[in-house]
């Protein structure tokens, strides 16, 4: 924690967890989808559901999906901006199992047709955590470039990913592995110390047994290759 965590951040009110954190969750959803969002079905859980309207959690999530930051003065008017920018959305309440009180499930479809389902939680003070991607467990906070590889649960896929990263001189900060059942679907979440080249991600996507590759880049919008 540094002194600008104490004096700061600059943010649109009223709540660091229910507003600023919600903007960040929307933003991370858009980045993981890696294309502008055309449709978002949003399900709010717990305190997000109970007090979300009063805190502007709904508008904050939409603002984030449109690519706005936590201090963007357009956040209160994000519904109108969604209309202008071609984003359709719906909101509903939900009871998620074993979820943090400030949790949301987002089902996103991109303008080019890509799908993504994420569950994320706002932990307080604007900090967030992605808890699930496409129905499988994950656990990362979006502070690092993050590679999420979904594959068939069989030997060799972790080695493929890690040797690619080694080849590109990308150091791994943290790594997690989950699966639904033996031989079923597995997911590998790798937080990296630097950006993973786009062509390497495309290469991974083509490998046999790899179902889907999702990548969180921290580069600014428009800088993506």
């Amino acid at each position, binding site marked *: *924690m*540094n*002194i*600008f*965590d*104490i*004096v*700061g*951040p*600059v*943010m*649109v*009110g*009223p*709540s*660091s*967890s229910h*507003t*600023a954190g919600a903007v960040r969750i929307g933003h991370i959803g858009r980045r993981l989808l890696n294309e502008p969002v055309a449709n978002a079905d949003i399900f*709010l859980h717990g*305190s997000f*559901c*109970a*007090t*979300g*309207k*009063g*805190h*502007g959690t*709904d*508008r904050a999530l939409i603002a984030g999906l449109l690519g706005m930051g936590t*201090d963007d*003065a357009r*956040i*209160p008017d994000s519904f109108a901006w969604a209309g202008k920018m071609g984003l359709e959305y719906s*909101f*509903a*309440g939900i009871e998620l199992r074993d979820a943090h009180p400030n949790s949301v499930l987002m089902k996103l479809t991109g303008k080019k047709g890509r799908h993504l389902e994420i569950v994320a939680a706002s932990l*307080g*003070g*604007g900090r967030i955590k992605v808890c699930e991607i496409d129905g499988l467990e994950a656990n990362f906070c979006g502070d690092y470039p993050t590679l999420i590889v979904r594959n068939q649960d069989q030997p060799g896929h972790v080695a493929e990913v890690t040797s690619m990263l080694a080849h590109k001189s990308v150091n791994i900060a943290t790594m997690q592995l989950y699966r639904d059942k033996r031989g079923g679907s597995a997911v590998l979440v790798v937080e990296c110390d630097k950006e993973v080249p786009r062509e390497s991600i495309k290469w991974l996507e083509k490998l046999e047994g790899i179902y889907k590759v999702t990548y969180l880049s921290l580069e600014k919008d428009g800088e993506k290759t």
Partner: protein
Amino acid sequence: MSFQSLKEIAAAAAAQKKPFFRIILEDDMSERMVSEEESFEAMQAMYGTMRHADESYDGKMKSASGLVGNDGQKLEEALQAGKAISGSFMGEVMVKALKMGESNACMKRIVAAPTAGSCGVMPAVFLTYQKYFSVSDAKMTEAMFTAAGIGAVIAERAFIAGATGGCQAEIGSASAMAAGGLAYLMGGGEQEILHASAIALKSLLGLVCDPVAGLVEVPCVKRNVVGAVNAVTSADMALAGIVSRIPPDEVIDAMRAIGASLPCSLKETGEGGLAATPTGVEISRKLNSSF
């Protein structure tokens, strides 16, 4: 931040014959690996954003729930009409605290200091002081560093979130930060800074977080006023040579112990205190047209 106590910061300031704020500034430079200019400009920008937020207040706005708005303007008008007896300086501190709290509730751009709910305390005290005593922005930025250092120690030893420590952790911390910064502006050294913040925090120990309908509105906006006014009275006491009989770091530890022993219903859940009054429950029932 690398300091675990206010005592350590004060000792470093005394040993190196440097002002309190400079110890905080240099610590930020080494922690974030930035130059003095970068650190100073970042803090000055925070102060500029606070001022802009104050000037952007709109007395006509209402929060989404309709519970909050217009109070800053009402008090300002009463003050200008000579109806408020708090005096012009304290009156303006109160007005600015209300305005910022309302702006936050109405989804305007603010600086969390240390939190969004307590964002009115520091700017109310600092902006009013600058207006009355014509201090440079650079000096105000030094006071911001002083306050940030105090806040960082509180966050390190205790907490600054209502959900973990109750309102004492938000408004109490903001008040302690503002009091220390103000003591510096008034010419106090590290001892006055420490005792001003200790007196401020002591006076708000035990304050619970009981927001009606769970929203950062009632009573949060008006508690910014008490935090700001308390910072001014605490700095006045410290500059008069009055000391906190309990050392500042021990006051922070006491806040931690109190926060830990508070039930969950009084820590930002909207289930106890004012939120649980018949009127609070009724407001919550009307608003809860959830998704």
